[in-house]
């Protein structure tokens, strides 16, 4: 379908105006993080006339961002591997095991899509303390894995159910065990669905602020989001540094988004694909 001339003009105007609204803050963020304070006040919108990396340098040394990035990467990576592994195993059973147990468990997992895990935070705090994990980034991993289960089982079970059943039957007649069917047939076929689940959870975990805020104080265990919030508080009047800190947190995800826009959009809206 195509718009006629008038409709097309309207479309371009509306979308261009909103795009400007979207890009203006991101533009201000990045260009001003490279200017000295004085120039930010004088000319907040233009490209920097005197380039400075002082903000980034200060953030990097004051905030140990190398450490925060490493921590966040470790947490995100391990959580994602576990979500994909145990989520896909569960999804295979939920899709192929015909029994009241599996139907019940399916509903039980899906209910988690509608109920935020944050409401259980008080008990999680006690649990993390009991496990002696407070103030370490390891405390985040089991929580993120649990948080990822509803979307993983939802997307992956639907995907496996749509695979042709004959394939599984044939393999089983040839004497393959369920574990072999899962690892040699289902997993490789599931790659696109696994990518969707991975991206959905990656964005959620990378950007999560709530659980680091509640579980972690120690510098060694901080994630990027927690580091940003603490440094931003310190830098409130030093705009170059404040903007540099925010850029450090925002730019990696934005770059990844520009490269993988299609997958990101699919991933983030995965919860609503089937309704």
């Amino acid at each position, binding site marked *: 379908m195509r718009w006629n001339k008038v409709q097309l003009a309207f479309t371009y105007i509306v979308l261009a105006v909103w795009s400007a609204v979207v890009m203006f803050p991101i533009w201000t963020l990045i260009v001003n993080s490279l200017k000295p304070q004085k120039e930010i006040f004088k000319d907040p919108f233009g490209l920097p006339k005197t380039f400075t990396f002082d903000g980034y340098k200060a953030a990097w040394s004051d905030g140990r961002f190398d450490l925060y990035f490493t921590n966040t990467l470790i947490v995100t990576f391990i959580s994602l591997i576990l979500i994909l592994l145990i989520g896909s195993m569960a999804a295979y059973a939920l899709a192929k095991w015909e029994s009241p147990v599996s139907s019940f468990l399916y509903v039980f997992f899906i209910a*988690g899509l509608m109920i935020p895990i944050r409401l*259980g935070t008080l008990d999680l705090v006690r649990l993390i303390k009991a496990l002696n994990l407070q103030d370490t980034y390891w405390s985040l991993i089991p929580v993120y894995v649990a948080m990822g*289960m509803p979307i993983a089982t939802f997307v992956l079970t639907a995907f496996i159910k749509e695979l042709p059943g004959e394939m599984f039957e044939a393999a089983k007649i040839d004497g393959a065990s369920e574990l072999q069917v*899962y690892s040699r047939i289902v997993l490789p076929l599931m790659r696109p669905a696994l990518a969707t689940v991975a991206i959905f959870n990656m964005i959620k975990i990378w950007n999560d602020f709530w659980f680091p805020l509640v579980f972690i104080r120690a510098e060694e265990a901080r994630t990027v989001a927690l580091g940003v919030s603490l440094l931003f508080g310190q830098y409130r009047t030093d705009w170059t540094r404040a903007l540099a800190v925010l850029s450090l947190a925002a730019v990696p995800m934005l770059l990844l988004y520009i490269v993988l826009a299609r997958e990101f959009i699919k991933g983030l809206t995965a919860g609503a694909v089937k309704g």
Partner: protein
Amino acid sequence: MIRVQEIFNARNRKKITWVLFLLPAVTVYLVFMAGPLFDSLRLSLYQGEGYTPTKFVGLQNYVDLFTNPLWREKFFNAFINTCIFFAIHMLVQNTLGLLFANLLSAEFKGRNFFRTVIFAPATLSVLVTGFLWTLILNPNWGAVNKALIAMNLREWALPWLGRENLALPVISLTSVWQWVGMPTVMFLAGLMGISDELLEAARIDGASEWNIFWKIKFPLLKPVIGVVAILTFVDNFNAFDVIFAMAGAKGEPAYSTDLLATLFYRTGIAGEHPVGIPNMGMGATIATMTFFILMSGVLTWLYFSRRNVTE
């Protein structure tokens, strides 16, 4: 007899295999999500300081929440603010999303570019978005006010986050800025599912684009609208980061942006000024009330969406 035994064993073995497949996921989900959720409900029946409130008090926390004027005022203030926060998303974010999706549903140059741009903020951390907008809306330097003054609109250059009646709508709109890409993409997927012939036939019959939207597209989009509405509801009744970043944990100014989640955080986790000792029992009570509000919303939605399907 032996054969029967063998079949029985084979079937049992199969069952055990499936259970093993499910076991890790069920364990993690039970221990770190479902368990804590339900145990938080139980915790709301206890009082006491520190991490292990031990005194069982029945429904006393709920009685306090609704009758003690101090708690009642806080709770209803947060509840109403959360409703406003949700309503602004529902109206502004989802209407804009519907508009953008409809515009994007045709083929034209730059369509993918616009879709990518509209969705981009959704990949940023809510915290970063909140901090960024705090700087942009800052009354002294704030790029927004600079731009307004440059356009000779000095009287419009307000302290956006400093006024009680202004802060909550402004923060809500910041959040709309971030999340409008979600309904846009979902509505777009719904619109792409409507057959082109149907729309062409209506156009040939001389129907205006306005009428086509309301008479054909909108009714067919109803299931998607339902999903978008329930996701907007769940996400926003649970919002915390954006308020924390732009108005602090206390929902400044003067609690005018305090939401259920920030009240929950202050009560159950951070502890209120000046003592700073968390009241876990009351925190759990606020969490439980949020849980019931969410459940009643979700169940209402399920009821209506089921009824629409069977009709």
